[in-house]
C-alpha cells in the first residue's frame, strides 16, 4: 500500500507539471489574437481586414445595405423599391428590421476589430514602432468614424471600447455628447500618430488629412465653428495634394479630390455603381423624381453629369451617375468616403457662422464654379448670413447627394428634418430622426431595457 501512495503522489505531481502537455499548436487555418500582433504583416492584415469588411456589402459598402442607401431613403433624395428598404423610406423603422440589425451589427463588428487591434498593440507586441503608430492611428480613426455614424443615426448608443464581452454585454447607453467626446479623443490621438503620407499606394487607407477632414466635420456638427474652419482649412491648404477636378473625374480611383477612398472588392468596381445604375426596372433605389428634375439651378452641370435617366415600357426613373461603371472587371472607380468638396462646404459654413461672409462665399463659389453655376460673388455679393447658410445647405444637397447620407445628417443637425420631411413623408414624427436600437440589442442587455 505504501508503494501505491508514493506512486499516487508521484503521479499527481506529474500531472501538475504536465499542464504544458496541453499547450497545443495554434490552428493553421486561422490566427490567434496573440500571434496577430507579433509581426508587422499580420497586424497590417488586421487593419486591412476592417477596410475589406467595410468594402463588403455592409454599412460602408455603398450597396443596398449601406448608410448611403438607407439614410438616403430616410431623407428626401432617394426612393426605395424593395420591401426591405421601405421602412427606411417611410421613416417607420421597426426594432426587428433585418437591414437595421445587420447594419448595426456590422458597425459594431468593426468596432470590435478596431478595439482588438488597440488591445493587441497595447499589449506586448512585436510590431515595429512606425508600423505600430500607423496602425494604432488608423484604428483610432476608424473607431471615431464608425461612432460618428452610429450616434448620428441612432442618437444615444452603447460606447464599446473593449473586446471583453463580459463588459460589453452590459454597457449602458452613452449620450451623444459623450460619444462625441470619445470621437474627438480618438481623432486627436490619430492626429498625433498619422502623417500625410498614405501608408500604401493610392488613397485607400486613411492618412493625417483624412483625420483632419473628419475632425472638421465633427467640429462642424458640434457647432465649434473655429475648429471646423481650422481643420477644413488645413486640408484645403494642401493644394498640391488635393484639388477639385472636373465633375466626371471626381469619383475615379485616386482622383485628385479624394482624401479617403475604399478599394472595392477584388476585380469589381463600386457597389454604388452596381446599385444605382439602372439597366432594368428598378428593384433597389432611385433618385426622388422631383429632386432629379427640379432640385438643381438651371445652369447646373451636375444633373447632366451626375444624374441619368432610364426608361422602359413601365416608366422613367432617375438614378445617380456619379459612379459611371455598373459592372466591369476593369477597375476605374473606387468608393469615395472623404473628399475635398465637403471641406470647402464645411469651411464655408463655419466661416458664415462666424460672420466671415466673404471667406464663406469664396469657399462656396469654389463648388459652384466647378458645377458651372454663376458665382455668388457675382450674382449676390451682398447676401446676408441667413441666406448664405441656406445657399450652403442647398449646395451641400446638390453636391453631396447619394453619398453617405449627407442630406439626412444635414437635415437633422440643422434641425430642419421635421420642417422639410413632414410635408412629404406620411406620418412623420419628430422622433423619427433616430432609428431605434435593434430588438436584439435592447432585449439582450439588461442595462438597456
Amino acid at each position: 500500500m505504501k508503494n501505491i501512495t508514493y506512486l499516487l503522489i508521484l503521479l499527481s505531481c506529474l500531472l501538475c507539471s504536465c499542464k504544458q502537455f496541453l499547450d497545443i499548436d495554434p490552428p493553421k487555418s486561422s490566427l490567434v489574437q496573440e500571434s496577430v500582433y507579433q509581426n508587422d504583416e499580420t497586424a497590417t492584415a488586421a487593419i486591412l481586414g476592417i477596410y475589406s469588411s467595410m468594402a463588403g456589402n455592409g454599412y460602408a459598402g455603398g450597396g443596398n445595405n449601406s448608410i448611403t442607401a438607407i439614410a438616403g431613403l430616410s431623407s428626401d433624395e432617394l426612393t426605395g423599391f424593395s420591401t426591405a428598404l421601405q421602412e427606411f423610406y417611410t421613416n417607420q423603422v421597426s426594432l426587428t428590421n433585418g437591414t437595421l440589425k445587420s447594419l448595426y451589427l456590422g458597425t459594431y463588428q468593426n468596432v470590435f476589430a478596431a478595439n482588438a487591434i488597440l488591445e493587441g498593440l497595447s499589449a506586448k507586441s512585436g510590431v515595429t514602432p512606425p508600423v505600430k503608430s500607423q496602425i494604432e492611428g488608423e484604428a483610432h480613426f476608424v473607431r471615431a468614424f464608425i461612432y460618428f455614424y452610429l450616434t448620428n443615426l441612432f442618437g444615444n448608443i452603447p460606447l464599446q471600447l473593449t473586446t471583453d464581452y463580459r463588459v460589453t454585454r452590459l454597457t449602458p447607453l452613452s449620450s451623444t455628447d459623450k460619444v462625441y467626446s470619445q470621437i474627438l479623443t480618438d481623432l486627436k490621438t490619430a492626429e498625433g500618430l498619422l502623417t500625410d503620407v498614405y501608408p500604401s499606394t493610392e488613397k485607400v487607407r486613411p492618412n493625417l488629412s483624412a483625420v483632419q477632414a473628419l475632425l472638421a466635420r465633427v467640429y462642424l456638427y458640434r457647432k465649434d465653428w473655429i475648429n471646423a474652419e481650422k481643420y477644413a482649412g488645413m486640408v484645403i491648404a494642401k493644394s498640391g495634394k488635393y484639388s477639385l477636378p472636373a465633375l466626371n473625374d471626381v469619383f475615379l480611383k485616386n482622383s485628385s479630390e479624394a482624401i479617403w477612398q475604399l478599394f472595392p472588392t477584388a476585380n469589381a468596381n463600386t457597389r454604388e455603381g452596381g446599385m444605382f445604375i439602372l439597366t432594368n426596372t428598378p428593384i433597389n433605389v432611385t433618385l426622388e423624381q422631383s429632386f432629379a428634375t427640379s432640385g438643381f439651378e438651371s445652369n447646373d452641370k451636375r444633373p447632366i453629369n451626375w444624374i441619368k435617366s432610364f426608361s422602359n415600357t413601365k416608366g422613367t426613373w432617375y438614378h445617380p451617375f456619379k459612379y459611371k461603371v455598373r459592372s466591369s472587371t476593369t477597375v476605374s472607380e473606387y468608393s469615395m468616403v472623404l473628399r475635398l468638396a465637403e471641406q470647402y462646404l464645411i469651411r464655408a459654413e463655419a466661416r458664415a457662422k462666424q460672420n466671415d461672409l466673404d471667406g464663406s462665399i469664396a469657399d462656396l463659389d469654389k463648388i459652384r464654379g466647378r458645377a458651372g453655376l454663376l458665382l455668388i460673388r457675382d450674382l449676390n455679393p451682398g447676401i446676408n448670413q441667413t441666406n448664405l447658410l441656406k445657399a450652403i445647405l442647398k449646395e451641400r444637397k446638390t453636391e453631396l447627394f447619394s453619398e453617405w447620407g449627407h442630406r439626412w445628417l444635414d437635415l437633422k443637425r440643422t434641425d430642419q428634418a421635421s420642417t422639410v420631411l413632414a410635408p412629404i413623408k406620411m406620418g412623420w414624427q419628430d422622433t423619427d430622426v433616430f432609428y431605434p436600437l435593434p430588438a436584439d440589442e435592447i432585449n439582450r442587455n439588461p442595462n438597456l431595457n
Partner: protein
Amino acid sequence: MAMLCPILKVGAQYATKPQLKNQIITGKVISASSGETLSGVVIKINSINQSVTSIEGGLFILNLPKGKFILSAQYLGHKTRDVEIEVPLREALIITLNPENRNLQEVQINAGYYTVSERARTGNIQKITAATIEKQPISNPLQAMQNRVPGVQITQTTGVPGGGFNVQIRGRSSVNSQVGNDPLYIVDGVTFPSAKVSDSYFGNILGTTGASPLSMINPNDIESIEILKDADATAIYGSRGANGVILIKTKHGQSGKPQINASYTQSISKVASHIKLLNTEQYLEMRNEALKNDGKTPTSLDYDINGTWDQHKYMDWQKLLIGGTAATRNAALNFSGGSDNINYRLGGTYFKEGTVYPGDFSFNRFSLQSSLNFGSENKRLNVSFTTNYNHNSNNQIRTDLTTYITLAPNAPDPYDQYGKLNWAQNTVYRNPMSLLLAKNTINSDNLIGNIIVSYKVLPDLVFKTSAGYNLIKTNEFSKLPLAYISPAYSPTPADRTATFSNTDNHTWIAEPQLNYNKKLVYGNLVALIGMSFQENAVDLRSLQASNFTSDELLENIGAAGSLVNKLATYSQYRYIAAFARLNYSLRDKYYLNLTARRDGSSRFGSDKQFANFGAIGTAWIFSEEKFLKEKMSFLNFGKIRASYGVTGNDQIPDYGYLQLYNTSATYQGIPTIIPSSSNIGNPNFAWETNRKLEFALQLGLFDDRLSLEASWYRNRSGNQLIGDPLPLSTGSLTVRANRPALVQNTGWEFLTNVKILNGHDWRWSSGINLTIPKNKLIAYPDIEQSSDAKNFIIGQPISIYKVYNLRGVNSQTGLYDIEDHDGNGLLDDRDRYLHKFVGQYFYGGIQNSVSYKNFNLDFLLGFTKQNGYNYASSQSTPGLWSAIDYPTANQSIYVFDRWRKPGENATIQRFSTDDAFDSTYENARAYGGLNISDASYIRLKTIALSYSLSERWLSKVNIKRANLILSGQNLFTITNYKGLDPETQSMNTLPPLKTWALGLNVTF
C-alpha cells in the same frame, strides 16, 4: 504438415532432464459436453516445468518419474482443470474438460482499463461477441449492435456502402447541435474518431454524418464489442465518457496447434423498401387538376403536360435508379496458433460491396491484421502487439440518385436510341444518368497499432503500459465533367471542375498503469492507477480545380485552368489524465467499485482545462445470502446494483476558447484577416457534465435457463455549452458558454434470455431486449432570448419540433387552415405554439437461436416505435413542377386524398402550381407538422441458418471444422410509415439494403 504428425511436443525451453526409470504415460482429453476428443490442449506440470500439447484423437504423452503430479489442462473455450495423478498409473488417464462460460456469471467483461466478471460487475456493460457478429452479412461493425443492445440507438443514415450511422447511447444530452453526442470509440486501446474523416463532398452521398470511420474496420476481425453505459463503467473515461463508450477488441491468437481458417461469403443486396409513387396517368391527373384549380393552362415550358413529352410513357424511376442488385464478396484467411508462451494470429480480408445504382461503383476494403502475444517463462512479463491495416477504396457517384426517383414518370428515357444521354431537345435539365459521370473516389488507409507491456513487479502488483497509434489518411477526388451538365445550361469549359482533398488524422495514446490485487481475509481488493496521454491532429486540405480543356483531363490537376483553395484546416487536440479505480469485494457478495479521473483537455482555456470526474458503483449478490439460498433454490443468481457518478463531454470544436482571426477578402490585393465574430473568444467555458444514476436488477433462474436484467437510468446533462445570446454591440450574436440548462434522459432497459430447449439435439434460446427512453429539457435560462426559443420547450424532449396549429383543409377554399395564434396577421415563429415529438417511444429486438444437431437458426427482429419525418419532408406542393427548379415533383400516392371542390373534406390541400398556395402548403408541411408522422417499424434485421459439417467426415480430409451459413439482413419490414424508409426517413437518401448471403467457413 509437420504439425499434424504425432510427435511429442515438449515446451521448448524446458527439456526434462534425463532421469532414470521414467515412465511413458499416455493420456487422452475429451470434451465433457460432446464427448469428442480434443486436440491442442496444453497440459502442464508446473512442479517440473513440463508441458505438452494433445494431438489428434486427444492423445498426449508424458515422460515422468515416479511420484505425484498435478496436471493442469488448458484449452480455449473450456475451463482449466487440474488433475492429480500418481505415477505409475493404475488406470487409463482420461481428462474431461467442461466448456467454459456454461455459467453466464463467469463471462469476462472488458471494461477498458480492467476486466471484470459478469458476476462481479457493478456497472452497466453489454457485450457482443464474434459469434454474433460473424453470422451477419454486414460491412460496418455498428450494424452488428443494431437492436441487440438496450439503450443503444443505432440508425443507418444511408444504404450507400461506407455510409454513416447515428449512434446514441441513452439519448441526446446536448441542446446545442454543434456539441457532439457520439460515444467514445476505442479500438484495441486506441481512440478511434467518431466524426467523419473525409471532406464534406462525401457528405452528400454518405448521409449527413459522412463516411463512417468504423466502416474501415472489418467486422470479422472483431473478437468482442463492449458497450459501457452507466457512470460506474464510464466515469473512468472522465470527460469523454458522457455519451457512453464502445470498446472494440480485435481477434487474438490462442495457444494450441496452428490452424488455418478460411471463409468466403457471397451476397446480393437490394434496397429494403420502396415508396408507391404516382404513375403517369395519376401524375398527369395531378398536374392537370393543379392547373385547372389555378385557372391556368399549360405553358410552353410545361413539357410534362403540354405534349412535348409522351403522355403515355411510364418510367419507374425508382426501379431504374435504385432498383439494381449489389453484389458483395467477402473473403478472409487467418492463421493462428501458438505455444504456452507465444501465440499469434495473422489474417487478411478482402471485401467488395457493389451498389444498387446503375453503373460500376463499389466499396472495396483490403485489410491485414496481426496480433502477437508473448509471455516470459516466469510469467512476469507479458507483451502483446496488435496491428491492423485497412485500405478502403470507395468509388461512388457524387449525388445520391434516390433524389431522382421522383422525376416525372413520363420524362424522356435517360438514353437515346444511340445510347447517348438524352436531353430531349434541351427540355431535360437534369438527367439522372448524367450523374453517373460525376464520380467521387475516396481512398483511405487506416493503421492501428497497439502494444501492451505488463510486468509483474510483485506477486500482487503489475505494472502495465499500453501505447497505440491510429492513422487515417484519406485521399478524395471528385469530378464534374462537362458531359454531366445539360446542354440547356450552355456549359463552358469553366464548368468542368474537380476537387482534390487530403485528410490526415493521427492519434497516439500512451497509458501507463499500476494494478494491485490483494486477497484479504474476507474479500478481495483491486486497485488501479494510471495516466493517459493522448494527441490527435487533423489536417485537411482541399483544392478545387476548374476550367479544364477536356473531361478526360479532370484527374490531372496540372491541366486545370484555375485552382482555388477550397478548404484548409488544421486542428490539434491534446488530452492528459490520471485515473484510479478501487474495487473491494466482500465474501463474493458485496461489491464496491470506486472510479475517478482527473482530465485535462486542450479544447478549453488555460483556467478550465482540468476537471474531476468519478463514480461509485455497488452490487449485492443477494442470491448468496443463506436465507434465500435455502428458500428459493430456483434462483441461482440475483444481484442488485446501483451506480452514481459524473462524466463529461468535450465534443466541441478545437480552439473554441481562443479569439481567432479568419482570412477575409483581400484589400488592394493584400490578404486581410478579421476577428471571428461568430466565435467570440471565451476562455471560460468548460465541459458539459453528465450526472448518471442507475439502478439495476439481474436475475438468473433455474440454473440460468431464464436470465433477466432490468435497469433504470437517469442521466442529467448540465453545464450545457450553448450560444449565450449577446447584445449586437458586442460585435457578435452569441458567445459559446456554459449555461445552467439541463437535459434529462431517463429510461428503462430490459434484457432477458430464455433457454427454452436445452437438450442434446434440440436447443432453443430466445432473448428480448427493450428500451423505453424519455428525454426532457428541464431548464434553459433565458430561452426566450435565444434562437433556441423556436426549437425547444422547457419540460418537453429536445427532439420536439414546434409547429403551427394546423386545422386541416378548409372545405371551402381547399387550403390548409393554419392558426395565426397571436393574431398579428403574419405566420411567424411565435405562432408555432404546438409541438410534435420526433424520436423513439421504445425500441428493441427479439432474438432467437434454434439448433438441431448440426443445424443452427438465428434470427433477430428489431422493432422501433417512433415518430419521424415522412415523404412530405422533401416534396413541395402537389401539382407543382418546373423543368429547371423542380423536376423531381412526382408525389407519393398519399397525396391523392386531396380537396377537389367546395364542401369536400380531404387531408391534402388542393393541387396547385401557384406560389401563394405553395406557401400555405410549405407552412403546413415544414412548420405545421405535415412532415412528421408515425415511423414505427418491425424489421427482420438478421436471419442466419448455419450447418456444421460432420467432424467425423471432415477429419478424413484433414479439415477440423466447416460451416455453411445462409444469412439475410433486413429481409422484411412491417410498417405503416408514409415514405421511403422508416429508418433513414428521407426521400433523398438510399434506404438500407436487404441482403442474402451464402458463406463457407473452413478451419484446417
